[in-house]
């Protein structure tokens, strides 16, 4: 008989693995990738490929330089690359994609210890750095479904619906709500098609990769605030929900494990916070869009949310009671 394996219990493990989970996220992003090609042409594939390759390469090189084990096998760099690409306009110069990817992986993720240790979402960190550094290239929106008309040589510029959206205003200059749902509007290449993003979200929930609590609370909070702000204007609320990066942010970015709270209670606080900040930025701040900023602000608050939502161990006394007892004893 060969030597037997001796290890600590448990001797069975669930089939879920880190690469498996990341693969599920990649699969969930595929519908949005397909939609981006249909809407904005094959350049969106190129942008995505450049981001993914630079993310993988910078993770590999950074780990090598830091003399740490190679982690590209966990597939998380691919997810970061795809998410970053989906948050860029299709016309973005490719070298900027490389700069953003390197920043996301090296500065935001690896400097803090790699997967699971980063305190803000790498893709959002990369995107915000690019927004600040390359403001005009990052807000140069291409009109959808124009690319095959003239071979993509002269891409037509357009504005995002968010820029011209006001409550109880005239919506005739905006794409129809159906177009908004299908993604036929200006915007980042992966964020526009609500249908594809929701399909991906349903897949993630069905595969138990994410719980629906963060997307629902985030989107729900924005919807409620916009309904109040629009004094009951239902159409305005729907435009707000379908525009900008709300869906991709709520489904794919705010649900990032490392940068969201562990407990359901914490997740609710986190998601409602994201929704409130997004709404406040959209309604009052001098910025066109607030999803990325809201998520990054709430990311930073996660440790505090965790400390107030820590579950009480089974059978442990309430802390207040303990304090009272100690006071009584002394």
């Amino acid at each position: 008989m060969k030597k037997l394996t001796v290890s600590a219990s448990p001797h069975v493990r669930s089939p879920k693995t880190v690469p498996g989970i990341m693969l599920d996220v990649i699969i969930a992003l595929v519908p949005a990738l397909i939609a981006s090609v249909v809407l904005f042409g094959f350049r969106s594939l190129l942008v995505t490929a450049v981001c993914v390759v630079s993310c993988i390469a910078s993770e590999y090189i950074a780990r090598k330089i830091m003399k740490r084990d190679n982690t590209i096998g966990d597939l998380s760099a691919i997810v970061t690359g795809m998410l970053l690409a989906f948050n860029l306009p299709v016309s973005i110069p490719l070298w900027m994609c490389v700069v953003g990817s390197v920043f996301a992986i090296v500065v935001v993720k690896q400097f803090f210890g790699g997967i699971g240790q980063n305190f803000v979402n790498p893709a959002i960190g990369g995107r915000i750095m690019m927004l600040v550094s390359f403001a005009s290239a990052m807000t140069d929106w291409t009109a959808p479904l124009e690319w095959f008309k003239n071979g993509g040589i002269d891409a037509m510029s357009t504005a995002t619906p968010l820029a011209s959206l006001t409550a109880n205003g005239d919506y005739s200059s905006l794409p129809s709500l159906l177009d908004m749902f299908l993604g036929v509007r200006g915007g980042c290449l992966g964020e526009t098609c609500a249908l594809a993003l929701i399909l991906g979200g349903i897949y993630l929930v069905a595969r138990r990769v994410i719980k629906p609590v963060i997307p629902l609370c985030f989107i729900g909070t924005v919807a409620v605030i916009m309904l109040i702000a629009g004094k009951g204007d239902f159409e305005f609320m729907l435009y707000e929900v379908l525009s900008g990066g709300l869906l991709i942010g709520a489904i794919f970015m705010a649900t990032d494990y490392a940068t969201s709270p562990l407990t359901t209670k914490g997740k609710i606080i986190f998601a409602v916070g994201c929704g409130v900040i997004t709404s406040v930025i959209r309604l009052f701040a001098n910025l066109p869009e607030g999803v990325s900023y809201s998520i990054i602000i709430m990311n930073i608050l996660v440790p505090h949310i965790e400390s107030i939502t820590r579950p009480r161990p089974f059978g442990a006394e309430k802390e207040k009671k303990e304090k009272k007892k100690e006071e009584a004893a002394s």
Partner: protein
Amino acid sequence: MSKISDGILKAVKQVKGGVLVDHHKDTKDMATVRITPPERVILPMQQHIGAPCVPVVRVGDHVDVGQLIADSDKYVSAPIHASISGKVTSVADVKVANGRMVPAVTIENDGEMTLFEGIAPPTVNNKEDLIKAIRNSGLVGLGGAGFPSHVKFNLPEDKEIDTLVINAAECEPFITVDYRECIENTRNIVDGVYLLKKILGFKNIIIAVEDNKPDAIKILKEIADSHEDNVVKVMTLKSKYPQGAEKMMVQSATGRIVPMGKLPADVGCVVANVGSVAFIARHVRTGRPIISRTLTVSGSAIANPMNVRVPIGIEASKVIEFCGGFKKEPVKIIAGGPMMGTALIDTDVPILKSNNALLAFADEVVTNKKERACIHCGRCVDACPMSLIPTDIEAMAMNKDAESLIKAGIMGCMECGSCAFSCPAGKPLVQYMRLGKDVVREAGAKK
């Protein structure tokens, strides 16, 4: 004990956490087979939680089946009896399942299986009699933990204990010992239940089963209905690991929460394994001590998986041989269930009173995941039935931060393995929990 439908209770409160593990109860329809007595048995002096026993026999002595061979004068301990008749050939250290060396008595079989003449049914009229009888029988909790039963049933006078929860949940995969006990030993279970009720005066008796065992539920329901006093009730639990854990069981049955660091008795409950209850009835009827037990032998490497009745002290290799040996090269052999059992170094170790399974795996089930960095996904938090945060505890254990560990509730961890089972990063979280407990104990010792 509110919702009664069809006379069967549902859990008062659903237990938080837990994991869904494949049941693999392949041997559930196989009647228990009695093994041919082996040529020798090895009886370690430590088969229970508490003080080890001291041998009362010497090399060369002849012993009969059921004769006392070791005892202890400590309270928390359980005596050990000869499981075959024959000659004591050695009193020396042997290797047991966890790899430790423990003093043990080895008996060479004379092939006679002569029953010890001193065996007589005890007279049980009151609590003292019962506790004495249980102690003399050498019974320890047959569910796996091996806590001396006479200590458990010696209910403290200053606490009002009103509820007996009989654990037939058997939430570990593969094991079908308790299930077979329900099917084959119904009479003893009934007798045991009513004996304990009569002597110890329980007001409620709840038999808890997971809902994946309809046959057992039916039989237990008949037990519950066999007396008109309506004290015994059957409760079904969702088939979710670890429903059979003591504190979880108390919560399901009564809604009471056992405080951290306390016992079920502190909230008026006693939890006993169904096999232990049946054994008590048999012992009171026959006077026979615990000298044999049922094991589930299963797993992908075993040729003929089955439930087998073996004498205590038989070597694991002999049991596997009886079950047709290995059909595939075993990679891992486990004494106990796959969630909490101990991996064996080799198969020449003896079967103890508290072993309920012997599982051998060729590969697929036991392949360990590659360990990666924690991705903070929260699966361990969702899985922990004690509402702990295993991923945080890992960091505290590595930093040897005893104060934070205590605050995080580490001492409540029962090492059920749900966290490590569900971890996608393949972290050996149970080991970190044990490490954390050691850190706390060390810090306590320094003070």
